[in-house]
């Protein structure tokens, strides 16, 4: 009897928490269809804010910046991170403490410290050499830096989960390291790589602070645009962009999960 009360209480608490977690997102989505520009009263259904998005050049440009940034940085991080992950696995019996520290550094560093140190660094380099002008390039560099560890750790954990004798068998089967990579390593790692790519992509789209500090005047991404719009005074268009972004990230995340699962079982 007592146990049932406890279970019922927990279940109620669960649903309250779920409402708490989804309420802000639902409000944003609901008001993106609001006919008036009130943030407090829903007056009727309309798609006018979405129509307005399409006519806003700044938003279109921010969208492309976000997309280019996410794709380019994810691909670069995939190549570099995959190499590290493989190196960590191959040489896991050595003392690689320095490498572990290096890989965890981007993860543990507070975003704001990460962002401003890169900004200060880029600005100083630019002043002295003319290189690394703040813009999409510097943002890509910064994003790759925080994506590498996640790719490396995913690849590493996938390799550790494999039977070590598989590597011996592959060595016997395929003479050259190149053939081994193409016929054994790549197919084995494919699910891990796809999931790492989607995770990197999501991390990039998700990031605001690091982008904000490494961006140039022309390279605003969607979160940076939204931030500016909020700071200037709430515009209902934000709800519409935000709704589209919620949808996009949800799709990417579900895809990543699906691939990850296929790889495991």
């Amino acid at each position, binding site marked *: 009897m007592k146990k049932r009360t406890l279970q019922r209480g927990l279940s109620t608490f*669960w649903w309250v928490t779920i409402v708490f977690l989804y309420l*802000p*997102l639902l409000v944003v989505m609901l008001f993106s269809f609001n006919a008036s520009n009130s*943030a407090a009263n829903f007056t009727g259904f309309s798609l006018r804010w979405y129509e307005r998005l399409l006519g806003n050049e700044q938003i279109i440009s921010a969208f492309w910046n976000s997309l280019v940034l996410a794709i380019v940085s994810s691909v670069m991080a995939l190549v570099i991170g995959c190499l590290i992950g493989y190196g960590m696995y191959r040489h896991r019996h050595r003392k690689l403490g320095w490498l572990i520290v290096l890989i965890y*550094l981007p993860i543990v560093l*507070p975003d*704001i410290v990460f962002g401003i140190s890169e900004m200060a660094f880029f600005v100083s380099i630019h002043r002295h050499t003319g290189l690394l002008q703040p813009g999409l390039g510097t943002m890509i560099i910064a994003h790759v830096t925080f994506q590498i560890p996640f790719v490396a750790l995913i690849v590493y954990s996938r390799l550790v989960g494999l039977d070590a004798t598989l590597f011996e068998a592959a060595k016997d089967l395929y003479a050259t390291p190149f053939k081994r990579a193409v016929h054994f390593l790549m197919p084995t790692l494919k699910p891990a790589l796809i999931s790492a790519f989607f995770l990197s992509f999501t991390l990039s789209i998700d990031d605001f602070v690091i982008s904000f500090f490494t961006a140039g005047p022309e390279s605003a991404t969607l979160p940076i645009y939204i931030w500016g719009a909020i700071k200037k005074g709430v515009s209902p268009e934000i709800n519409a962009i935000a709704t589209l972004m919620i949808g996009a990230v949800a799709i990417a995340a579900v895809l990543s999960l699906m691939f990850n699962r296929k790889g495991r079982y």
Partner: protein
Amino acid sequence: MADMSLVVRGRAVVSETRHLLFSVMPGAVWIIVFLVLPSVYLMAVAFMTNGPYGQPQMPLSLESFRQLAGFGFLGWSPGNLYTLLRSLWQTLLSTVLVVIVAYPIAYYITTCREKWRPIMLLVVVVPSWTNQVIRTFGWMNLLAPGTPLSDAAQALGLIAPNMGLYPSNFAVTLGLVYNFLPFMVLPLYAAFEKLDTAQVQAAQDLYASPVRAFWHAVFPQTLPGLLAGTVLVAIPAFGMYVIPELLGGGKGMMLGNLVANQFAGSANWPLGAAGAILMLIATFAGLFAMRRIGKRLGGGEEVVI
């Protein structure tokens, strides 16, 4: 013969080392050049003097740390100290609240049917995949003046008429709890899933009260998860920028805002860098403390983030 094998082995070692270098080097160099060097540069900036345009200059000095402690042209002012204390308080408060909410949630998930559990975890985590700015904006919509929540708070006399629940310190705490809840639920769930229920049964058989049973049989077993969660919540909460900036207003500023402002509006890089050093010290002290506690409790390996 022996010499031959030595040569071969020597060559193998060399090629292994080369392999290590080629696989690991691009990434290692990347992180060193684009993160370690910038961080070292930032630390150096903290010991420079602020130039007329907010750019760091020689000579070296400790002026920025004096400013961080609150000493300015007009003598000492408590503003920065308040900001620091507020950051500590908000971190502590939100971490405790997150723990209080996450414990029952993590436990509840383990009591549900096995096939539902991954989905339930997913449901908890999905909101945190949305951009932080958007989530915080969602709370601005919910807490603004004229919304049902603000009206209710007015009716209860919690806030002045015609005011909203944001900007306020309350809104910042709420935003932090909202933001970090999943990071506590996941490690706690992992701990609960491994829980040895025989110990709980034994405690109950020995007529332990539910509180005592929890404290002696459940709590120690979930401690590694709790510590991992605390690292994941408290460290980023202390350096939070977006939430206090949007939900806190001038009186809700935290250390992250103080640091960021020195690089944006008021332009005093050395002061900002000094604040960043403080944040780094707090981060590594927190990590170190958690590792120590984790090791002492024997669950050291699990407290890895």
